[in-house]
């Protein structure tokens, strides 16, 4: 099960954060801060998986954005890397060559796309067409 998804830029500012388990307030801030501290300084040569408390952190850097996903220990790490890739490609298709600015200015759209892909910590849809179809449809409303 996916515990959270975090998009952070290389200065440590959160651009998108979604939590799939009950965590609010101070706990959330601590989690975010520690996660960012652990992932950001890693070099390209190092492995994308980090163990943190009872979770596994899987991260990938795309240009100036870090995509960090926290998962349960029984999840397949390589498939989460695929998920991150899928997410980026979906954003790419919707925003036409996505950049950090696109996601920053259109936060609510980004949340909606994310919600079409992942619900309650499980992957719900992986086909980009099917993910974006409802978004396009409701935009014309």
């Amino acid at each position, binding site marked *: 099960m996916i515990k959270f998804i975090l998009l952070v830029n290389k200065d440590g500012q959160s651009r998108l954060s979604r939590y799939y388990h009950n965590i609010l307030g101070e706990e959330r801030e601590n989690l975010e801060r520690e996660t960012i501290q652990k992932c950001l300084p890693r070099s390209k040569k190092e492995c994308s*998986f980090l163990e943190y408390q009872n979770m596994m952190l899987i991260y990938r850097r795309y240009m100036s954005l870090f995509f960090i996903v926290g998962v349960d220990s029984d999840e*397949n790490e*390589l498939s989460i890397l*695929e998920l991150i890739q899928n997410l980026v490609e979906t954003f790419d298709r919707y925003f036409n060559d996505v950049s950090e600015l696109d996601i920053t200015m259109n936060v609510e759209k980004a949340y909606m796309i994310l*919600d079409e892909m992942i619900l309650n910590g499980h992957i719900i849809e992986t086909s980009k067409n099917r993910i974006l179809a409802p978004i396009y449809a409701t935009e014309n409303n």
Partner: protein
Amino acid sequence: MPIPMRLKELIRLIRSCKTAAEERTAVNKECALIRTTFKEEDNEFRCRNVAKLLYIHMLGYPAHFGQLECLKLIASNRFMDKRIGYLGAMLLLDERQDVHILITNSLKNDMNNSTQFIVGLALCTLGSICSPEMSRDLANEVEKLLKSANAYIKKKAALCATRMVRKVPELSEIFIPVTRSLLNEKNHGVLLTAVALITEICTVKPDTMPHFRRWTPQLIRLLKNLIMAGYAPDHDVSGISDPFLQIRILNLLRILGKEDQECSEAMNDILAQVATNTESSHNAGNAVLYQTVQCIMDIKAESGLRVLAVNIMGRFLLNSDKNIRYVALKTLQKTISIDHTAVQRHRNTIIDCLKDHDISIRKRAMELSFALINESNVKTMIKELLDFLNRADSEFKPFATLRIFQAAIKYAPDKKWQLDTILQMLKAGGSYVNDEVVASSIHAVSESRDLHAYITQQLYFAMYADISKQPLAQVAIWCLGEYGDLLISGTVEEGSHKIDEDGVLDLLQSVLNDTVTSFITRAFTLNALMKLSTRFPKAAGRIKEVVARYTNSLDLELQQRSVEYSALFKSYDTLRPGLLERMPRIGKNDGTEAPVSADATTSGQANDLLDLLGDDIPSMQPTQPQNNRGNALLDLLGSSSNEDSVVQPVAAMPPEIPPLNIYDKNGLRIDFNFEKATINPDNTVQMTLNATNSTAFPFTDFVFQAAVPRSFQLQILAPSGAVVPPNNSGSITQVLKVSNPNKQNIRMRVKLSFNMNGNTIQDQGEINNFPAECN
């Protein structure tokens, strides 16, 4: 009231802030405006304001005052309003707030709405935040939606059901019938979520697994279609069609096949097919292979398949991608308990990984390497591991030193090598060696009689080089105290300087003078000095003076020792040689026996000591071990220290666990005898079952079966026989091993059957009263 700004403008405003303080001011100002607008019950701009509030919440500022507003938005008719409202509900509310119950009604209405997107929104929100009460209320609605024709709604409903089932496992009964038809869908999204739902039901309610096992053929067919199908543009990822669905199905198969032989057999073919056909040039392919290997390892696969899996992992280990290597090391660690020899083949690669740049890989490689040590490779492995220890991060050192020590004790080909390894371990481990290892090292040294001189010499030189490492210093000081005379009289290695009495005493004194030395080490040193006072008779005066210096020490332990030792010099000088003779072999006590014997001698000692102080000299046995005397003194003066516990040997001896009688009926009596290793990563308890028969007829065809809850693992070895001889003339023994990694109370269900005089007697029951020491 000015028109509230749009979200985009707010974002731009915040981005333009140069400092954190500026940002805070801007946010606070906006929050105030939003709050005022909320109070005014303005419908038009509520949507906009809540959107801004969500953004502010993401930045980390408090936004709870928007919760009720979300509810109002949800109740509105406009789609945009509902959307932001539901998003707000998902982000701002969670189970712990009471407000979320209020949306139950809106959710129910929206789930019956004709527009599929609104239904979708409601399901999405329900799936993210529903509590047990809400689950119970709305489960029927969700089940209805699961049967709808619309794939979009179905997949969301399925994941919603997943959460409900997790919160309230009993609800799974409602959803099980629907899942059957879900598996027949063509839509990948629905399939993905259906498999997720089934997996969740199996996890929270394991007794449903037999039901789902019947669908294994269908799952296998699904998987097969995925692999065999040609290019499917919708779900293709680098040549693999829908790897996510494949991985999900493999995961479910793994859970279903875990305990079940029949199910596992059915899967053998498809697993072999997936393993051989999947391309491993891209991450997607590797992800599928990884999942396949995990599946093979967990089910009761045939050996050919296992070999295939280990080979795949071996290939992964050689891959240049770090992530793949990490994944391989992780899986091999799980494999090692099942198939040790296969992993041994990759030993060299694993040792290379010890030198990797990445800390995660190094950690896994280290754990795996320790698990791989056996008699034949111990020398090479330890050499590599000591090398690793020298370079290792401090977080690995305690674990590494402990495991090196255990391996040295268990597999050492000869004593000299063992002691050399221990010495190197102490040198490399620095201050991270824990006390038990120190104690056990001392024990190991005292065991090897002919090497005393040699090892003391080595320790002397090691300490000479560096006295700051406490564990090394403690072992060295103990040895110097015990065997100092051997050191002086023995031969010295070429090239090193000659050791003489003064040299040794100088060294010990420098330890005492050093500020880095801990109190425990100082205590060790005082003891050692006392022992040397008999071994080096000429230096007795000097030693007496050094010991006397501590009579005013602030540490109670040191002061006490110093005073007593000084007393020993002054008034009871004649006793000194007898008291401080060479220690006898430290017996390997178990944890429970040692305190008893120590107490017995302690009370005896205490009495003697009292008599001593009363100017009465009874005869003392000359071979009293000195540490017990220390204990007596401690008890007398009421302080406690760790010295005695430090010297207790550990790590190889199991604590005594009383045997348990589990069955005594119809003349059959079954007892369990327990054995447990104290340091054991899986916390395994070995139980030996002993069945005796007090009747006049033999019990034939005796079969004993046992099962444990899922959090444990049970291994039952073959019994010594199937016949329990009559009149207690013999017994059947059988070994069971239970591993208890979570340290829970062991429970076991047992079933036995045997044949007595032509009648078959069967019985079963549950054992809950395992002694607490087993856990």
